[in-house]
């Protein structure tokens, strides 16, 4: 009798939602402690990037000159009243400026990757799918871009266009997006091409051809989703590179225009009084480090989670 009920129960039980490959990957990701730490850091960065200006005690450009005068013309140290992380030389609240920096970093992180995806994935897919002349042409183009020294190219572009409306757009950020994106798409294009090349010989692609699926749908529905894992990883791991590149540019005074506060430009300003007021360098440096660590851990975790060959090995 008991067995009977179990059997009936088992048959009536609603079938579990399908465990698709993406859901399985998510499960593996959440088992990885470092990846979860990365995910938390990235979520915090996102949160502060999006809501920072609403949380900030001061607008990032407002100068609390009275407080600075009261302090003898020197930046306020951390834990001062009204300024929990202190101020800079001009009396601007450091916490508020860091939050604005977070917004810039987040924007750079995601917009640059969008630029990279929109250039890299289609070009890579075209090259991989059509092979032959299209492939050679596109791959030589990527070789050319690959051969550029990245930073030099970005600096050159920034300097040339700095005074044009194009360079002034979005406080100079637009130029940063384009410059970093232009040197970054190459890796993604190559990766996509490689994925498409290996996947297009698989039997399920032949099967899809045999039922008359169009080339476009084969690439979009069959090839790209199967090759997406490594591309997602490359893009996640490309984010810290982009954040660092933006910070570097800001540090040498290119890119975001003052009074906007990039973490890079905060460090550049702060290091003028490094001995007396180390907090002006320390806090932005910690922010950069945490952001980079977050994306790197998340990227590593994604790589493990999305690589079917590592399944069950951790």
């Amino acid at each position: 009798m008991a067995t009977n009920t179990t059997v009936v129960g088992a048959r009536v039980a609603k079938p579990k939602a399908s465990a698709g490959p993406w859901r399985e990957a998510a499960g593996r990701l959440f088992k990885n402690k470092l990846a979860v730490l990365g995910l938390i850091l990235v979520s915090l960065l996102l949160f502060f990037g999006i809501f920072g200006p609403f949380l900030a005690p001061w607008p990032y450009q407002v100068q609390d000159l009275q407080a600075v005068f009261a302090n003898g013309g020197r930046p306020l140290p951390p834990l001062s009243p009204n300024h929990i992380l202190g101020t800079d030389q001009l009396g601007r609240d450091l916490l508020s400026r860091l939050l604005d920096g977070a917004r810039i970093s987040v924007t750079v992180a995601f917009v640059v990757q969008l630029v990279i995806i929109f250039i890299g994935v289609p070009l890579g897919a075209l090259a991989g799918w059509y092979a032959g002349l299209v492939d050679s042409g596109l791959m030589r183009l990527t070789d050319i871009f690959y051969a550029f020294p990245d930073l030099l190219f970005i600096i050159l572009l920034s300097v040339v266009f700095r005074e044009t409306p194009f360079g002034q757009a979005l406080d100079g950020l637009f130029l940063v997006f384009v410059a970093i994106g232009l040197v970054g798409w190459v890796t993604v294009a190559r990766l996509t091409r490689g994925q498409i090349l290996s996947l297009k010989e698989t039997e399920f692609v032949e099967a899809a051809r045999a039922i008359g699926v169009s080339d476009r749908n084969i690439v979009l529905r069959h090839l790209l989703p199967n090759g997406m894992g490594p591309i997602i990883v490359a893009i996640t791991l490309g984010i810290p590179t982009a954040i660092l590149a933006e910070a570097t540019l800001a540090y040498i005074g290119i890119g975001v225009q003052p009074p906007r506060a990039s973490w890079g430009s905060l460090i550049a300003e702060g290091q003028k009084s490094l001995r007396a007021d180390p907090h002006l360098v320390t806090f932005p440096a910690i922010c950069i480090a945490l952001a980079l660590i977050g994306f790197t851990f998340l990227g590593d975790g994604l790589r493990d989670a999305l690589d079917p060959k590592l399944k069950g090995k951790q």
Partner: protein
Amino acid sequence: MVSSEEELSAGDAPTIVELSSDDVLRARADAVTKAGVGRKADHLLEVRGLSTHFFTPDGVVQAVDDVNFDVGYGETLGLVGESGCGKSVTALSIARLVADPPGKIVAGSILFDGIDVLKLSAEDMRKLRGKEIGFIFQDPLTSLNPTLTIGYQIGESIREHLGLPQKAAKDRIIELLAKVGIPRPADRLNDYPHQFSGGMRQRVMIAIALSCDPKLILADEPTTALDVTIQAQILELIQVLSSEFGTAVLLITHDLGIAAGMCDRVNVMYAGRIVETGTVDTLFENPRMPYAWGLLDSLPRIDDVRGDRLRTIEGLPPLLINPPHACRFGPRCAYIRDKCRESEPELTQREAGHMARCWATEPEGWIE
């Protein structure tokens, strides 16, 4: 017929007993009549002088060389032969799926329902594939996309070719899944291929092949990757459904037992050529080509003495780069004479509907 059945059933007893049942045969006869309605040509498929060559760095491989055959409306034609003899390339050529480069259909014509397939534009060909010509592949494990649900994959050709609205397409998919014997089809729609067993996946492949009610199914060794009990089920499914839908089947197999049980007629291929063709009855009862004898002889038999070695055909098929103008089976043939080395025999009529390519079994040949 009786003797040939005995001979063949040894390897695959359940298959043959199941499939030769009168019901299935009657259903198939009905199907042939039904499929004839609205026909546009004498045969559904007429392959004439088909030659598919592969241009490799080592030379031109003549994988399929001057192949001729017909498939009637609703008929099941077998294509048998050992590995590398051009069976699959023939099927791929019909669907124009031969990878180019290195492959190329260099000569011949393929008339499908009165349409010259080789003259179609790539776009028209794409519309024919999946709609009029279904394909069942050898390995259901790799022929399904692991990242898409089976519901999506079955719906793919329905959406592509029939343009049904969402709801109607879904109903059709569920109906197809039920037809191929998948339990709880409505629930399994959103499952992924890895959640199905090999046999179930092959059923899904059959559902995909049948999804647009094609006139012809090209089944390329549909059961090679499955174990014997599942093989029997899958073959029966193909047979029952093709009868029901009036679909012609070109069944590629290296298993003569399967060919005998499933097919109306059989073509034996060797080294890119058809070497013998006939109805199942004539060909298995009275094969007229030493290669066919070898194939039949190599089947294990129920009355074999225990411990006896299985019989094989000695040697390997020839390289198909610049094959000599001689009988291609000659080097492996026990009955070879000078004539076989000097010229290649033609396919000649032996009895009604039975042709063979062999000097030795010609009326003036040296084998009775």
